[in-house]
């Protein structure tokens, strides 16, 4: 979730990359690859496809930056970047004529186990409990509608601010906030009071 200062810094990096500065371009790629990939991977449930689409997203951005009449700053860069990614995903899904949700959502090779992504060292019992919570949470999210999943992924996987999500989806900010709130409410219902208590404890 970007602040004004970081947004200005991104604009400077973008300008340098557009002028042909390779290190600036690499910095952009390194900064955003993980989030773009994660968003695409969660949406399409296909690691290879997510990698291809991530590459296509950055190639598109690169072309836009290098074109004379290409990228024009009209809003937040992140909203622009994630919109490219989601457009690529939508086009690919249409092309493949298949539903993203048919993939194995709990595949062991797809999600990183929680302890590996956790920031702090945990005791074995605590770690097991945490793994169980995360697993239940993922299962519950997988059971939600695509629309609800989308808003949660844009918020938590892509790490976007609500204003950026609104810009990406082309929806009013109020609508996005309401959608996010109702998606979380639905998630709590799916988890059930007991699981929710442990997740939120």
């Amino acid at each position, binding site marked *: 979730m970007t602040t004004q200062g970081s947004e200005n810094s991104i604009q400077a990096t973008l300008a340098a990359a557009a002028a042909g500065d390779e290190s600036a371009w690499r910095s952009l790629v390194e900064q955003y690859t*993980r989030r773009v990939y994660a968003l695409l991977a969660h949406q399409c449930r296909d690691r290879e496809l997510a990698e291809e689409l991530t590459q296509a997203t950055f190639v598109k951005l690169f072309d836009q930056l290098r074109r004379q009449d290409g990228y024009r700053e009209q809003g937040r860069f992140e909203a622009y970047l994630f919109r490219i990614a989601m457009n690529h995903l939508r086009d690919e899904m249409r092309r493949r004529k298949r539903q993203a949700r048919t993939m194995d959502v709990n595949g062991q090779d797809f999600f990183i186990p929680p302890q590996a*992504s956790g920031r702090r060292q945990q005791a074995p019992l605590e770690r097991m409990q945490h793994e169980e919570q995360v697993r239940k*949470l993922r299962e519950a999210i997988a059971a939600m509608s695509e629309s609800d999943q989308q808003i949660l992924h844009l918020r938590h996987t892509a790490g976007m601010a609500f204003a950026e999500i609104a810009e990406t989806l082309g929806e009013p900010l109020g609508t996005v906030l309401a959608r996010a709130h109702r998606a979380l409410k639905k998630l709590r219902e799916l988890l059930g009071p007991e699981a929710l208590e442990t*997740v939120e404890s």
Partner: protein
Amino acid sequence: MNERHDEQLEPLLDQLLGAEEPADDLVERICQLTDGPLCDTLDQAIGPDSVTCDHEALVRRIMAATSERPAVLARIGMFGVAWRMAAMLAVAGGLYLVVLGLTGSDRDSAQTPQIADVLPPATDDSSNSSLSDIEQAIASFTAATDWAFDQRVQRVNSGLDRVAAESFWADSPVALVERAAESADMYEGAATSTGAWF
């Protein structure tokens, strides 16, 4: 806490629904109420680090794809120019052939000598024509026809004049000379019969 938050949030969200630019403090309050312990766990469950990815390899792949990009685009650009030039030449050549095909038959008929142009008119005063005049006329006609024939053969051989090829045998010099010979016979007969009168 959720029910309590929902009670606070629902009226605020109803206010916000459809609002393009809601007040910042209202948004901030809703964000605070929306984001909670569940969201912290969500960040871990579905955050950027939640899926397997060789991040370094992906960055290298993107950098390779984009560093090759200008060269590829330049090559495509050069091919594009070459293709455009080739297409323009093809169109120009096609137009030339079409124009040649349309005008070729008319030009040939204009250039090909006609027997009537070289033979004395077959009128009543044909008695003034001698046989040598007729032979000379036929000889000059044949020479002119040979030239036209050569021209047409060249055009037919080069494949440029389809119309000429189709009418080649119909207008062949052999046929023309036969017609000339018939005319010559007619004049010779006329001269002989006229001479007999003198």
